[in-house]
């Protein structure tokens, strides 16, 4: 008890008023240390601050625990679709129908494009933009129309930013979208198997499984994949309500997306939106396994070629010129 009655006690470092000592609380060394630690903490907080501005919607527990699409049971999937429809209603204020369109037996999709007929009007890209519920501000589309100099087939030399009456007499126009490769490099590189090739040849993405690493974007030799840098903004009266889980439902931020040959239409037997929008009829779509289909007639009777054949990707998308 005697000890405590003297000053602030013997364990205290200030030792009864000897404030100028080296090991005291407010010594030069401790002040410098404290200052450095404060600065360090401030720098750390500043470095993490982008996370606070990360606008990805909070992940619900169900969303976080959702299994991979291919591991969902029928009941699970129904609940997931219900939840996604509810989310769309909350986020975009409109009623949408999200369905699970499955491949049809005996069907493998193929697409062909007549480069002699395409005039480069970009109506296909526009139709894709609206059909697939793309972000309005970025004018995103799964189709890129390349203006090519006659005599070259190198798509890397194509120009997408042409702005003059088309077709220019010295140019030809080559729309490029996902080629739905039979040997897809984008699928090989995915570290989480969030993208795969389905039985009808469509390469799809489970947007809820994708981690957004963009390896597939880098791997695609056709520049066909797109990344959702931010949450898509679409006026509610412009949203296409006919949606599919693997296709045109509004994608969350931070995931990859790609052309699915409009599987929400084509798996119902309908034509893709880009084909219906084409004013010149340059596009031919159909079932490669049906020997009487239009696409097979094109492959049988036209001199078709594929892009970057030397890479061995084996596309299901064919180009041809009229003789």
């Amino acid at each position, binding site marked *: 008890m005697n000890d405590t009655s003297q000053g602030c006690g013997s364990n205290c470092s200030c030792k009864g008023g000897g404030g100028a000592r080296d090991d005291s609380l407010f010594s030069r060394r401790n002040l410098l240390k404290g200052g450095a630690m404060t600065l360090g903490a401030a720098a750390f907080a500043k470095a993490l601050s982008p996370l606070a501005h990360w606008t990805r919607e909070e992940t619900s527990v169900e969303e976080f625990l959702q299994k991979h*699409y*291919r591991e969902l049971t029928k009941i699970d999937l129904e609940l997931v679709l219900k939840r996604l429809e509810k989310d769309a209603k909350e986020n975009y204020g409109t009623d949408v129908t999200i369905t699970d369109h499955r491949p049809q*037996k005996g069907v493998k999709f193929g697409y062909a494009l007549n480069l002699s007929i395409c005039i480069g009007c970009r109506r296909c890209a526009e139709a894709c933009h609206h059909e697939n519920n793309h972000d309005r501000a970025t004018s*995103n589309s799964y189709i890129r129309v390349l203006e090519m100099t006659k005599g070259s087939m190198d798509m890397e030399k194509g120009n997408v930013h042409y702005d003059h009456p088309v077709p220019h007499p010295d140019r030809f126009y080559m729309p490029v979208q996902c080629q739905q490769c039979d040997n897809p490099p984008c699928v090989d590189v995915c570290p989480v198997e969030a993208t795969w090739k389905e039985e009808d040849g469509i390469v799809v993405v489970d947007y809820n499984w994708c981690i957004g690493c963009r390896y597939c974007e880098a791997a695609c030799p056709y520049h066909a994949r797109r990344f959702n840098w931010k949450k898509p903004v679409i006026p509610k009266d412009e949203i296409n309500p006919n949606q599919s889980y693997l296709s045109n439902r509004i994608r969350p931020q931070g995931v990859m997306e790609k052309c699915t040959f409009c599987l929400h239409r084509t798996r119902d037997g*309908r034509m893709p939106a880009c084909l219906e929008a084409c004013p*010149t009829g340059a596009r031919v779509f159909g079932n490669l396994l049906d020997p009487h289909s239009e696409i097979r007639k094109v492959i049988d009777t036209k001199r078709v070629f594929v892009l970057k054949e030397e890479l061995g990707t084996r596309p299901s998308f064919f180009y041809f010129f009229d003789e």
Partner: protein
Amino acid sequence: MTRGIGKIAFGGIVAFIGLYFVTALAWTWYSSEKRPDPDKPGQRIAEGPVPAPPHPVVIRQPDGKVMVDSGRRDARGEPVMVACATCHDTRPPEPSLHSSSELDEFHQGLTYAHGELSCLSCHNANDYDTLKLANGQAVDFSASMSLCAQCHGPQFRDYRNGSHGGMQGHWDLTRGGRTRNTCIDCHDPHHPAFPQVMPVFPPMPERGETLPHAHHE
């Protein structure tokens, strides 16, 4: 003796643990090789549709009677349309005429750029409400495709193969029909080359997007 029993018991435990691991491994392998479960949506292939009678392919038809704008307006401001026969019934045909600029009146401003054809190559001098094939046979305006096909064989062949001409509807005709354009939906018969248009929907480079190298003239 007790040491011997202990050894056996120890060996038994080791063997049991080993067996457990082997079983677990085999089970993992078996479940990964399992046949597609029909209850799992990702692996199921939807049954093909029951073979149904194919739906129709409708080719858009030009409107029945062809009328020509007289250039005059009626009391309500509507253009006065005139049937071909109104004038042509009483005028002698001009077989050598190639362009509307050679006319003194009517059909003025009609752009004409269709090879070396003359008006009466396609129009029927005996009945201006119909067209005429090369063999002289009259065809209705709604059947103009057979007229075009006389010269444009490759295009007609491609059209019949489904690789020429725009369309809407179903690729799978067992599930729905299809509407196809006819020749004159895209090609004006008097100047059939597809016109130049301004491209729509200019693309914007996305952040971080790897655009193919753009070249400039």
